[in-house]
């Protein structure tokens, strides 16, 4: 087990390292002079360009530059945005909390409502099943930006329960502001997870070992908990992990649509203004978060279903 986790962590670090190399190296794939690219395409005087070249070590060999950048990122020295005229660390620090809250909120919705409704659909009888199936069919067809538009339409002109713009201040107000973005972000994933949960629980309910447990006179509640839900947990968790990891990228849409000031909207705004200093750091952060969540899911999954662990160790 420890060896397994160790190998997973090593693989994750390796992936993030290579990703950082790719992200930094991409600067040289782009057309034009890196210095003017970093300047965000502004017209700069030769002196200013030279200052940029010096600041970002652009005249050093590529690997030295990369190392300077990477060690800067690792120690929190992220450089300055030439577009916002602010240190990147400030820009990110001011927005990180909103994005983390948004992802956490959406994850809770997905795990709570998605998994919960899937279980209800599987064991709650025909009417509950039909209601959940119809709802999830509609939601699954709604990408985040469509869900966002519909929510804005409803809550801006018909109901005014939730604000449709801005991030709010203080915890309660932030949560209030993040409700619609979280719903828009999670709707499609939530429906998908509900479907997966329903299918997995159904499959377990009909499995031979559950029939055998019934034949042994085990109580219905105990069968549901110890055999059905416990066994369905591993595949459901695997899918939830992938969706939660995907949420980090999705924050760009939800934050942009609802005017939430977070990493996703910062990434979009920086990309639109070609502020590469900021884009590189956020892209790396999002990739790292994505890989990290995927790794955590792998590990938890191996704990929940030890057969996987063995299969991977053998294979």
């Amino acid at each position, binding site marked *: 087990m420890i060896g397994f986790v160790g190998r997973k962590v090593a693989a994750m670090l390796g992936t993030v390292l290579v990703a950082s190399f790719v992200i930094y190296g991409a600067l040289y794939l782009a057309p034009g002079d890196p210095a003017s690219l970093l300047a965000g395409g502004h017209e700069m005087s030769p002196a200013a360009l030279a200052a940029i070249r010096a600041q970002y070590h652009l005249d050093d060999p590529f690997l030295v530059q990369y190392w300077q950048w990477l060690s800067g990122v690792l120690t929190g020295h992220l450089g300055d945005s030439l577009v916002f005229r602010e240190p990147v660390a400030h820009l990110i620090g001011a927005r990180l909390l909103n994005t983390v809250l948004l992802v956490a909120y959406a994850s809770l919705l997905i795990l709570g409502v998605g998994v919960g409704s899937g279980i209800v659909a599987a064991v709650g009888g025909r009417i509950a099943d039909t209601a959940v199936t119809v709802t999830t069919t509609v939601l699954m067809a709604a990408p985040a930006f469509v869900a966002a538009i519909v929510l804005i339409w409803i809550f801006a002109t018909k109901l005014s329960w939730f604000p449709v713009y801005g991030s709010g201040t203080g915890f309660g107000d932030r949560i209030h502001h993040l409700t619609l973005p979280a719903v828009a972000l999670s709707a499609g994933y939530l429906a998908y997870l509900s479907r997966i949960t329903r299918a997995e629980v159904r499959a377990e309910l009909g499995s*031979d*070992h559950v*029939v*055998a447990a019934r034949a*042994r006179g*085990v109580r219905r509640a105990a069968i549901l908990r110890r*055999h059905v839900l*416990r066994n369905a947990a591993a595949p459901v968790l695997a899918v939830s992990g992938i969706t939660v990891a995907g949420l980090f990228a999705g924050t760009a849409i939800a934050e942009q649509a609802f005017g939430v000031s977070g990493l996703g909207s910062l990434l979009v705004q920086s990309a639109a203004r070609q502020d590469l200093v900021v884009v590189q750091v956020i892209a790396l952060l999002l990739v790292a978060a994505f890989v990290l969540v995927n790794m955590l899911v792998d590990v938890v999954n191996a704990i929940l279903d030890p057969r996987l662990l063995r299969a991977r160790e053998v294979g």
Partner: protein
Amino acid sequence: MTAFLEFDHLRVDVPTPMGPRPVLRSVNLAIAAGEAVGLVGESGSGKSLTARSVLGLLPGGATIAGAVRFRGTDIGTLDAAGLRRLRSREVAMVFQDPRATVNPVRTIGDFLTEVLRERGMSRSAALALAGGILADIGVDDVPRRLKQRPYELSGGLLQRVVIAAALAGEPALILADEPTTALDVTTQEEVVAILDEQRRQRGTALLFISHDLELATAVCDRIAVMYAGEIVEILPAKSLHEEARHPYTKALLRARPGSVPPGERLQIVPGTPQSGIEAPPGCVFADRCPVVEADCRTTVPLLVGGVACHLEVP
């Protein structure tokens, strides 16, 4: 006197696109306390369903007519709590494939003690009891086994665990549904020997389901031959060869390896096996019977004197 276990004109219909159709037509069989009865027949004859009906484990939408009575109680009248009591204390079942019937993600110890603990036994007492039974039936290294998970055990060993779990509840009856079919040949005999030995020691009755006549005769007192949802013949295991009267039983006996001299061609039962759904309306075996008569196709023969065949009516 009420029988220990009695199938009384048991009929089970399952829903099909053409409406309900019988999978069991009319099963009549009585088993005495401590007796071992073998239920033998081809695939689809309804053997498993017969055994499952004792526990009230019927497929969804199935309707039941007639009755299964255990110690005088009609299983069909039991409520959920009564069924659970029956399943956990009085009747145990051993299924065909231990790989499929033991929850793959829980430990062997969890599996063995689950029912005992629901009865209120402490974890350590339940583990001690289960471990004792495992040791009794020749499983070595018991403490380690209890911590292992199903995928770490061989099929034969896992089936012993299943049998130990069945024995742990001290049931009065064990239903064994082809308990060795999924195992390889060398472990089959060991597993059957354990089952036989343990149930004799404990005086437990046994309903042993098999498509293997030889195996059933080895462990059972009586053999009930089933075809297409009906029991067509019941006879003592010892005198199976001499006393077989039903054409189907005779055909089955001829179809076994060892029934013909070496070098001669093995006989098969002509035609394909039928289920209760497909069998003809009169005698269920009429379509495949070598000595069929006009009467067989129209009238259902009754199980009289141990055989259900028009040609055997005295």
